[in-house]
């Protein structure tokens, strides 16, 4: 849970980026504390990286591979010769790397859109099972209605087009600002604003059709 404590301790995006900038500078020195500084950068960014990678690849193992690849690239970047002073938001930069790694990953292989395991049935045929992202059905705290609503919202999110889903995750799960989202996705802020508006509208319509709202 240490990494959650670390992230929650950063009360604003500015503080987080300030911290990441300092860590990046330290990691670049390659001297005393550089390795620890890099590891601290990983801790601050790994959750968001994984979540975004998961939303794109829709597969836990692939998201893990993408997360690994992202931070290998980050380490290579920090120890390289490239000029990095122009990076204002390291968090956005890392998530953008994660997104690019995810898209590269998808381009290289055929990826299932939903979490799945393949199993071999009695006839030796491989079948795929859909596995929910998180099993909340056994959570005794949640009421039936609440569980049903959350499942419906999850389905609504899954039905969104890739860009809308990624933007929604960046906004709602990662708490990214519109500016950060525009940097990560490589789109204009006006586009971010309209897509978030439409994505939420889509979720609303989905829930209305399921008579959840």
């Amino acid at each position, binding site marked *: 849970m240490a990494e959650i404590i670390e992230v929650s301790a950063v009360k604003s995006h500015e503080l987080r980026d300030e911290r990441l900038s300092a860590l990046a500078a330290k990691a670049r020195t390659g001297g005393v*504390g550089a390795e620890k500084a890099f590891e601290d950068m990983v801790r601050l960014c790994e959750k968001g990286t994984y979540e975004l990678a998961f939303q794109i690849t829709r597969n836990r193992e692939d998201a893990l591979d993408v997360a690994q690849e992202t931070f290998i690239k980050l380490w290579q970047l920090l120890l390289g010769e490239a000029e990095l002073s122009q990076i204002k938001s390291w968090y956005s930069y890392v998530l953008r790397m994660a997104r690019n790694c995810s898209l590269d990953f998808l381009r290289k292989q055929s990826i299932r859109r939903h979490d799945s395991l393949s199993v071999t049935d009695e006839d030796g045929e491989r079948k795929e099972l859909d596995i929910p992202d998180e099993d909340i059905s056994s959570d005794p705290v949640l009421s039936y209605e609440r569980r049903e609503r959350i499942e419906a919202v999850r389905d609504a999110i899954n039905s969104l087009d890739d860009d809308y889903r990624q933007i929604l995750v960046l906004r709602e799960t990662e708490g990214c600002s519109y500016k950060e989202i525009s940097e990560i996705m490589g789109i204009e802020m006006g586009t971010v604003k309209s897509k978030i508006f439409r994505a*939420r509208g889509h979720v609303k319509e989905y829930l209305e059709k399921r008579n959840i709202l």
Partner: protein
Amino acid sequence: MERDGIKGAECELVRRELSAYLDGELEDADAEKIKNHIGGCDDCREVFEMLSDISEDIRSVKIDIPEDLHLHIMSAVNEEKAKDGGEKAKKFNSRIRKIALWCGAGAAAIICLTLIGSPIFRGGFELDMAKSADDAANFAADISFSGKAVEKDAVCEAEGANYSLFDSLNEDGAEIVYETKHNKHYSGSAKEEADDLEAACGDSELLSQLQGGKTGEIGTEAETFSAETDGEAIAPVAGQDPSDLLLGNGDRGEKNVSEMFFYDPCAARGNLVAKKHE
């Protein structure tokens, strides 16, 4: 009818901004307008509340984070580093050959200070991040010698070096570990480094000590000193005896550590990196 039309148009404009208003992404003046509108418009307020509920619902949909995510990531990174390790070891070996082993104190010395859980600094120290351009979140104040510190991939040469040497053989070969009187270690690795050091020492007894994993000494016993001051950060001057510069008024012994600084041997400067919080 016309008023209804105007109001309808206004509501349409407001609803397009409700998402951004919810996210705090509007300029103050625009946010104020939205706030005033939904305060007086039941329909738009209802839409806003619905968006707020949906936003909360979306945040409730959690993605299961693997418990060993960090471990997986760092393992992959470290594996990648190891691939580059061969190149770095070669560079380290060539530096080792330049090590001059000196006996006796005195002479201008360059000290590397690293702090790895030293008991002196364990309690009450919080790193004052703002003070140091170098993020001093991790450093070891482990000093038991003046002069030569050998870290993996970083060698700082100095004169007047005294140190204790502890070495143990692992299955991959010798690992050079420099042990201080606070029983802290920082190490180089690779058998080539141990061989080089032994060759530089020309000390067969040291070699046996290396292989036996015992603490060996070269020259006079390494001195332990504390980077303690009376509250003043002291900027060392290149060539200055580090024992003097670190102790301010020249006293040795236990003091309440109030400040310590990291002496960067490569830059011959001191950076205040830690300040005890009362």
